[in-house]
């Protein structure tokens, strides 16, 4: 369109004529309003651009951009859907606790898919658990949860759990209102099953204002979301079932706290190489003897991880049985050697262990008498009441390799306040220092313990763990185990009160501060 200096339309091209029939030669452009660069006329999106011509005339280019704008809008919508699904994938991509996964699913659905989102899991034992997220004034939705008896589930949910996708949306909203999930009937809602391993593992109810109807494109997005949510929940449930089993097995393989014994204060530390696994190839323990003494042990089996942990379990069970028939440390270790040799030969495992095994008996003066047998393990340290550290001369051969190993023996006495320390090579062979390639070594360990004679046994065990971990400075390490026994002296002073200090085992089991 060409206009004269006074704004009179001088020329209109046929295309412009078609797009803007109200513009005529001789008239003005006033009918087009403020002449925005983008305008919608007669259902078309138009782009206007003005160019100056000579003699004060101007030329207006008119372009129909309806199709490209539509395509751009569709692209933007598609991009936001992909972005949404990417976020969903990221948030649900990690294995989660099942309850957390369920809460995450409804939280993610709001506000993109719904104002209110309800996830109903397929009933287990006649009860169906549900999670609901509701949009509040700001961005973060509030999440709550509940349980319904399976018989009370809305029929639409039951149908959807069988794999159907109910389309009669009116009664869906009413049913959801009856179930207490939706605030009122003035909503549009859809129900989508969450795919599970075979049958749907749950259904997702989405609802928003009745004015915003769910169209087919919305449903595609909801189904894509439901597929990811279903996968995440299935993984979470599978993970839970497996960890439940693993936990049970793991608990039986964790070193047990030493049994309380008169005159002895025990201290332990345990840090497996694989922190996520929490079990390893180091072990310790103690058993009470009928004569008031205790047999105690600490050792390390060949190999790492689960297999090593299983072997420590066998070993501990062996000792548990054998200490009832033999209480002399050297002969007990010899018996253990024979038993291990037999099982390893039978299973062709070729596993062996190093260990220190001792018997402790309280003396009248409050001290402790110790007899220790050595099976190829690091010699124990004794922290004397002078504050000096002494290494006991104890050697010997590996347990479970030859039929008649040389087993070392040493005896010592602990005066009240003195402590004997057994530890695994994860302590002294911890690599650290400037380059991370230097071993901690016995000298540094001795140094760290010198002068610590007033520390209780649990604090000493923790100190060794701490010194080792400080030396490691977050580097990978082998299993670390410490067993400390301290002579606490003749009889504890009488309590002024009736209530005793609660007996606490070391290390504290997880959740010990829970109710």
């Amino acid at each position, binding site marked *: 369109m060409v206009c004269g200096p006074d704004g009179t339309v001088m020329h209109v091209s046929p295309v412009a004529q078609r797009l803007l029939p109200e513009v005529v030669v001789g008239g003005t452009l006033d009918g087009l309003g403020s002449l925005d660069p983008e305008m919608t006329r007669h259902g078309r999106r138009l782009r206007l651009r003005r160019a100056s011509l000579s003699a004060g005339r101007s030329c207006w280019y008119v372009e129909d951009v309806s199709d490209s704008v539509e395509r751009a809008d569709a692209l933007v919508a598609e991009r936001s859907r992909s972005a949404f699904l990417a976020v969903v994938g990221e*948030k649900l991509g*990690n*294995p*989660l*606790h*099942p*309850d*957390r*996964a369920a*809460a*995450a699913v409804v939280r993610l659905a709001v506000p993109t898919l719904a104002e209110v989102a309800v996830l109903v899991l397929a009933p287990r034992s006649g009860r169906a658990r549900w999670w609901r997220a509701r949009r509040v004034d700001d961005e*973060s939705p*509030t999440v709550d949860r509940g349980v319904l008896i399976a018989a009370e589930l809305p029929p639409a949910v039951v149908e959807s759990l069988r794999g159907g996708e109910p389309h009669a949306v009116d009664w869906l909203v009413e049913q959801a209102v009856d179930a207490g999930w939706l605030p009122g009937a003035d909503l549009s809602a859809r129900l989508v099953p969450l795919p599970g391993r075979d049958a749907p593992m749950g259904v997702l109810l989405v609802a928003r204002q009745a004015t915003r109807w769910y169209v087919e494109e919305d449903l595609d997005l909801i189904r894509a979301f439901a597929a990811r949510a279903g996968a995440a929940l299935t993984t979470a449930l599978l*993970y*839970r079932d497996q*960890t439940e089993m693993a*936990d049970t097995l793991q608990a039986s393989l964790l070193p047990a706290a030493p049994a309380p014994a008169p005159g002895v204060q025990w201290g332990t530390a345990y840090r497996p190489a*694989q*922190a*996520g696994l*929490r079990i390893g190839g180091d072990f310790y323990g103690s058993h009470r003897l009928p004569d008031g003494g205790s047999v105690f042990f600490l050792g390390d089996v060949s190999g790492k991880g689960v297999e090593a942990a299983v072997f420590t379990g066998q070993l501990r069970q062996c000792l548990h049985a054998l200490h009832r028939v033999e209480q002399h440390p050297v002969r007990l270790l010899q018996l253990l050697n024979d038993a291990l040799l037999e099982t390893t030969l039978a299973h062709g495992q070729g596993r062996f262990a190093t260990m220190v095994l001792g018997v402790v008996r309280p003396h009248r003066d409050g001290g402790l008498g110790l007899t220790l047998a050595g099976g190829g393990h690091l010699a124990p340290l004794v922290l004397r009441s002078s504050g000096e550290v002494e290494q006991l001369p104890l050697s010997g051969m590996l347990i479970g390799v030859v039929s008649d190993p040389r087993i070392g023996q040493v005896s010592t006495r602990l005066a009240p306040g003195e402590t004997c320390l057994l530890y695994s090579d994860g302590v002294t062979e911890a690599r650290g*220092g*400037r*380059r*991370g390639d230097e071993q901690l070594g016995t*000298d*540094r360990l001795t*140094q760290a313990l010198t*002068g*610590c004679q*007033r*520390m*209780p046994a*649990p*604090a000493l065990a*923790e*100190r060794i*763990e*701490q010194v080792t*971990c*400080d030396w490691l*400075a*977050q580097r990978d390490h082998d299993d670390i185990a410490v067993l400390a026994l301290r002579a606490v002296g003749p009889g*504890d*002073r009488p*309590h*002024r*009160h009736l*209530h005793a*200090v*609660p007996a*606490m085992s070391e*290390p*504290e089991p*997880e*959740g*010990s*501060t*829970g*109710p």
Partner: protein
Amino acid sequence: MTATTTGISTAAVYPHYLHCLAEADEQAAVEVAHDLLDAGVPADRVLLDLVAPAQAEVGERWARNEWSVAQEHAATHISERVVAAVAACTDVRATHGRIVVACMDGEWHALPARLVAEMLRLRGWQVTFLGASVPAAHLVSYLHRYDAHAVALACALPMRLPQAHRMIEACRRSDVPVVVGGRGFGLDGRWARRLGVPWAPNGPAAADLLADERALRAGAPTSLAHLADDEYAALVSRRGELIDSALADLVQRVPAAGDYSPAQLDSTVSDLGYILDFLAAALYVDDGTLFTEFVEWLVTILDSRGVPAAAVEATLGHYVRVLHDFPRATGYLQQGRAALPVSVRRISS
């Protein structure tokens, strides 16, 4: 402080309690706490007014070199037993969800976190205290196994902030919100804000924050754009080499350092490493005051152990020279030098 009808108050027994810690007398220390509970002092007051300040005093005595590490360690152990004893005397039904309380991997001062854990338990939360020095893998596998309302993560030393950040991210990937506390995030929690994570200055504040799920989830975005300059990553990867050069520089300047005993050498190497670790943490959160505060603290500690501050100054100077192409790091090092006592700066200039 709570005055009671029987006339026993935490203020009155405090000196005796400290004496029990000094003597490593666990039984007597527990009795002090039991007496207070018997006299009607609420459990949280015993923890806040007796155990917490006494433990702070223990730390200060160590800093002043009045107590050995062994003494400090023994006293801390007894404080922990006292907390356990107080906890055993209170019977609170858990009415809220589960909170997992953990200390950073490598951090052994678990008592402040333990006190927070008990404070939360007294408020009706079901608390799992994972203890000191929790490996990230352990925490994450725990979160997969048990549904937790939130994780309360304690960090005592700012040098562990980069690691704390990774741990926070790991929890969040498990969709569990995190609240942090401890001096490691700065006395005003400013480094927690930098990492975009809610921070509580103490147990009661943590309890309030945990009760407000929306505040808990409303994490601010992290502002770590400065990491793009790679100074942090480069410093971490050159750590070993930098310590070597600092040690060589030290031996050159102070020939006596060449005759250090293995133990002296170890502690020198770890001090040289700490300087770099705190510098790296300062780079991570882009805040030079983190490093300056550390230098001030280090000088106090070394001073009480007869090590002159000039040694610190010379090492900072050395690091400035070798890190000349690290503008942020050299800036922090210079600020750290400026914070040293005036006398030191004059000697070395």
